């Protein structure tokens, strides 16, 4: 199957190379030196806590990308990951701060709450899609905005917020609810929940390729009509897919909260949702592809500091990310067409039929 592997890698590699060239051109046009920029980006990896930060970020991005990928298999664009992880994190932090439980059980419960809250935030778009035909892109974007409102409301000091110095946070989670990490001294601490990401990716791969549920999910996305004739309940699949996607999204904030902050603060990061979508596209919804894509994304994010140091506007990293997303989907289309034509040629020659294959007409 090496030809398959080669063709699977071709599009992402092409896309990344193309985006890199594009960014290099942009840099040159704005008076910076691309070589210097690249050097700074790579060089900083060895310093300080950067390497650990990249690993931690990779884990977070992987969760977001898995959430997006689950939706993608059903042709659903879950833009709502942004809102779902915010709600998941906030609710989990509030509950975690309020509960008293023995260790391990405590943070397991918090994780469950996060997933449930994320799924809950995806419920309305799911229902609207199957009952009223509302497109999930629009409804989830609205839910993202409302999530900001909800978060601002819940963190008010008369609700669940506490003033800590200049910051407002939820009640801190006691140590029984904190997940221990791997302490590498002054190199930083690797989040314990990095393993969650790895497990999630593995479960995702197995379920998708080896179970009946995964088969039905993929079939519904490929051809809803054929899947319906094959006994798959399309509406049920849509709802389940969005809810599971929301649940995984709810976990996105957990590595940081359970491993470092121990509370939801005003500084809670945003943007993981769109990153997840881009990575899922880049990694072609494949667990290994997602892992590498997340690594690349994290590397680009963390390089912003280094770019600042050499005087290159750090937004070039954002442009690179956007360019990768666009180039990768274009590259996939091109490669897909080449592949289909090649396969039809092979089949035509092998079977010697003068009959036009249906798709070529």
């Amino acid at each position, binding site marked *: 199957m090496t030809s398959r592997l080669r063709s699977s890698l071709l599009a992402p590699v092409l896309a990344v190379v193309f985006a890199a060239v594009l960014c290099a051109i942009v840099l040159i046009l704005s008076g910076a030196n691309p070589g210097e920029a690249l050097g700074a980006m790579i060089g900083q990896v060895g310093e300080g806590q950067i390497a650990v930060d990249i690993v931690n970020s990779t884990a977070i991005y992987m969760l977001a990308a898995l959430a997006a990928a689950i939706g993608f298999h059903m042709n659903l664009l879950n833009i709502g990951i942004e809102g779902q992880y915010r709600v998941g994190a906030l609710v989990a932090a509030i509950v975690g701060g309020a509960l008293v439980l023995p260790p391990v059980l405590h943070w397991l419960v918090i994780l469950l709450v996060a997933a449930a809250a994320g799924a809950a935030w995806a419920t309305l778009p799911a229902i609207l899609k199957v009952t009223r035909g509302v497109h999930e892109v629009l409804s989830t974007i609205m839910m993202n905005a409302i999530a900001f409102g909800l978060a601002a409301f819940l963190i008010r000091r008369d609700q669940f917020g506490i003033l800590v110095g200049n910051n407002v946070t939820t009640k801190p989670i006691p140590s029984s609810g904190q997940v221990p990490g791997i302490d590498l001294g002054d190199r930083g601490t690797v989040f314990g929940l990095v393993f969650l990401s790895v497990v999630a990716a593995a479960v995702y791969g197995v379920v998708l390729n080896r*179970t009946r549920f995964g088969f039905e999910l993929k079939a519904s996305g490929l*051809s809803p009509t054929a899947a319906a004739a094959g006994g798959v309940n399309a509406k049920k699949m849509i709802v389940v897919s969005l809810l599971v996607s929301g649940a995984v999204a709810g976990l996105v904030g957990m590595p940081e909260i359970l491993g470092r902050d121990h509370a939801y603060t005003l500084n809670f990061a945003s943007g993981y949702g769109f990153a997840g979508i881009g990575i899922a596209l880049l990694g072609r919804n494949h667990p290994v592809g997602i892992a590498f894509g997340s690594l690349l994304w994290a590397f680009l994010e963390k390089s912003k500091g280094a770019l600042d140091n050499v005087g290159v506007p750090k937004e070039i990293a954002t442009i690179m990310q956007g360019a990768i997303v666009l180039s990768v989907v274009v590259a996939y289309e091109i490669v897909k067409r080449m592949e289909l034509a090649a396969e039809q*040629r*092979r*089949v035509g020659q092998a079977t010697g039929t003068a*009959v036009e294959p249906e798709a*070529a*007409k």
Partner: protein
Amino acid sequence: MTDTEVDTEAAVVLTGITKRFPGVVANSDVHLTVRTGEVHALCGENGAGKSTLMKILYGMQSPDEGDIEVNGERVSFRSPSDAIKAGIGMVHQHFMLADNLTVLENVVLGAEGLHGIGKKARNRIRGLTGSVGLDLDPDTLVERLGVADRQRVEILKVLYRGAKIIILDEPTAVLVPQEVDELFNTLRTMRADGYTFLFISHKLDEVRAIADSITVIRRGTTVGTVDPRTVTTRQLAEMMVGSELPSPETRESTVTDKVVLQVEGLVLETPDGRRLLDALDLTVHSGEVLGIAGVEGNGQTELVETIMGIRRAAAGKVTLDGQNLTRAGTLARREAGIGYIPEDRTRHGLLLTEPLWANRILGYQTRRPTARGAFIDIAGARRDTQRIVEQFDVRTPGIEVAAASLSGGNQQKLVIGRELSGEPKLLIASHPTRGVDVGAQAAIWDHIRAARHNGLAVLLVSADLDELIGLSDSIKVMLRGKFVADADPATVTPEDLGSAMTGAAQVDESGLLVTGGEQ
């Protein structure tokens, strides 16, 4: 038999046309001469290359080799507009109409320069509607028109653009015999007015009724041109296929008394309350093939999908071998023993981008050998797919190729092989040989007959009246969501069925069709 004289009266002359696609040669050295003012038929089986040839003549494709002459002049078309300027118009088999636009808008689209898009255009169209037998306000939305009227709009489109040479691609495919007669009368009138027609069809009886000369094409090349008065339908068919024709006729009756499928009072409604299925009753026994005849759009698709559970019935009961399936979903119905050959395999039967073994799992993801508990059994699926490929003669280099790479006939054989492998009690076959070449068609008929012999009950829906009459043990005619007549395949003719399908037939007290003609 090939006519190679270059005639100054020739409207169209095609010489040496060749067209290749990746992996296939669609047309190879095709020669065709059409005289002005004649109805020239182009016959060939599915996949012989007729459509490609016409696309080339109409400018939608360009030939790799060969010449085209129109009215004595060499031409080269880069797009349909060039062909239109040369006076060629095409009426497609699948109508190219936008439902949300009016008749006027559909007709003037692309030709706005001729008479504008307002009053002048409207008047011009009103003038032309008479010659095609259309009796409508040009501002009617196309979605309100029936099939025959839509076809007339298509003809109107080409007349509006000043076409004198008109290509008709399988025009009678969706018409009942009475509508076919009306169409042919229109063609004869227009022919007298100097129009030339190029008529693509594989319905040989009709072709012989209307054509002045017939060219047969097989596997991409012309076999010959004949005068319909000097050949029989049988000879034409053999020219098309190149060998003895298979026939769908079945010999002995294998119908038993055991009721397999029982449908009572089945009702299906649209959201605004219109009945698509109006309290239908039917029974299929083990070893019986029940055929459903009817013009497309009268509820056959809905009937099949409701029995399969894809659509939800508003009322009624469906029982399979004593098991009440009325509330069950599609998966449960399949597990109970129903196999389903959908009318559109690309949309309802296959995952085109997936390999053949993945397609084997579709519909069987809860059963051996393709599944084990909550997991799918990929090795089992691969083994069984290999078996189907061998047993059903699916021509493919392997089971890892995507389903889209197979030809229509081979895709259908795969689907049938899959649906018969679950050892079903009931097989629902909806247009099972549509878009399938003659060789595969014969094989499919054999498989259905063999399964019937083993006690399978079959519900057959088909627009091919010969197939329906030849395979069925009993026939019901469907019109507007109701069964309006029963027919005995031993005595009924396609004309009788055609009358019944449009509601023009007579029926005796027991609902049996009063047949008119000889076999």
